């Protein structure tokens, strides 16, 4: 185990160096596997949900076969807990491993006054009872359901914790992020309260109420940044709605909170992984003007790795590579050629981490032979 801990420490040092624009020994390679790893192991997600102790077992196969220096961890959603509350928002696809979800937003346009008047009561009681049928039963039944949920979530977290321990002790692989969560209020509205259509409509028709709601949600969500800096690695934010915003709305309603939360994390000695879903290049100038160098790590999605690197690569570390569909449809040699070009452009000077563009969720997302060859190639060619 000692050699794996040494490997872990070396990878952690490489990771931190490159996130500070210091050349590491190797370009770090990320394992961005969610339920894809479950399908790859020939297992069923339902079995892992029923027995979270199996999570580590399921992920062993992919870490045995596919090179990785860093990991996003294992399963993210304790679906059984949602089901205990009567929700069918999350479900498993016919393939037996891919987790899908429906939009699950129950706040109406005329609910802003209730949210602003008693935020926690509205979010927990009013919306909770709309979302979860089991919360509409008697107090004793609800209490039992909530205890079941907490016990299950703890078991689920322990299962993921066991995976993290296995990754560290058996594979020498650190987690990309461990402490601190950044969740700007407009994304809370978009993801949890009003949904895609409701939020974009409110930007035009309920703008003042929406702005007040962001202030209320800020008080609830800012404290989640506080654990930043207490772990070994960094904080994280998966950003959903900015790709649908113009620069004016982003600057007025999203950015002030995102910037403050990232600075909170930065001032605690940590950094924030910004998973920038969709296209973000129209926000690059603002981000570089207002955030310190190396304060955040930009996880690219629809933005080109090389083109983004040319603009932000000296200021922010980036996490990028080729797309999952390239790994699925290109030949092995085409994948390696594309990787070589990206490493040649982005790796010099540090500040670059290799990853596929999206979390892998379905077994058919990539050609596994290409992925195995690609990650091994990036590791070898990415030696400084």
């Amino acid at each position: 185990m000692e050699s794996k801990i040494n490997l872990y420490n070396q990878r952690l040092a490489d990771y931190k160096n490159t996130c500070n624009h210091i050349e590491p020994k190797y370009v770090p390679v990320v394992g961005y596997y969610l339920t894809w790893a479950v399908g790859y192991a020939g297992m069923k997600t339902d079995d892992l949900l029923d027995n979270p102790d199996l999570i580590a077992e399921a992920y062993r196969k992919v870490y045995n076969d596919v090179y990785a220096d860093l990991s996003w961890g294992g399963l993210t959603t304790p679906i059984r807990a949602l089901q205990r509350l009567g929700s069918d928002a999350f479900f498993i696809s016919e393939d037996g491993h891919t987790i899908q979800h429906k939009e699950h937003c129950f706040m109406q346009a005329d609910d802003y006054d209730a949210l602003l008047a008693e935020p926690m009561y509205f979010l927990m009681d009013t919306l909770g009872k709309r979302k979860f049928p089991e919360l509409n039963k008697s107090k004793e039944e609800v209490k039992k359901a909530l205890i079941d949920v907490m016990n299950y979530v703890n078991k689920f977290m322990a299962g993921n914790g066991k995976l993290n321990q296995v990754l560290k002790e058996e594979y020498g692989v650190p987690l990309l992020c461990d402490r601190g969560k950044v969740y700007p209020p407009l994304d809370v509205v978009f993801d949890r309260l009003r949904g895609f259509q409701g939020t974009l409509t409110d930007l035009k028709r309920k703008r003042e109420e929406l702005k007040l709601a962001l202030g209320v949600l800020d008080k609830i969500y800012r404290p989640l940044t506080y654990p930043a800096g207490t772990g070994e690695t960094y904080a994280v934010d998966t950003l959903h709605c900015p790709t649908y915003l113009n620069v004016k709305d982003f600057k007025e309603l999203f950015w002030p909170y995102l910037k403050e939360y990232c600075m909170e994390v930065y001032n605690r000695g940590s950094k924030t992984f910004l998973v920038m879903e969709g296209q973000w290049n129209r926000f690059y100038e603002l981000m570089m003007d207002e955030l310190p160098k190396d304060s955040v790590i930009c996880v690219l999605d629809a933005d080109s790795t090389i083109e983004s690197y040319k603009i932000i690569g000296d200021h922010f570390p980036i996490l990028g590579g080729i797309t999952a569909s390239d790994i699925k449809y290109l030949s092995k040699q085409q994948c390696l050629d594309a990787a070589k070009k990206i490493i040649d452009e982005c790796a010099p000077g540090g500040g670059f981490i290799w990853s596929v563009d999206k979390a892998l969720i379905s077994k058919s997302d990539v050609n596994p032979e290409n992925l195995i060859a690609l990650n091994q190639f990036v590791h070898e060619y990415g030696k400084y």
Partner: protein
Amino acid sequence: MSDYNILELFEELKNDASWCEDEALRKGSVDRLVYFIIEQ
């Protein structure tokens, strides 16, 4: 109709050792449950 206020019930769960004797685990679990109810 339900016969309880969920915020009061959460306080009750925080202070009720009958379902979890470990105070830190119990309070941490309830705090996590708040965000779980909001976010799921």
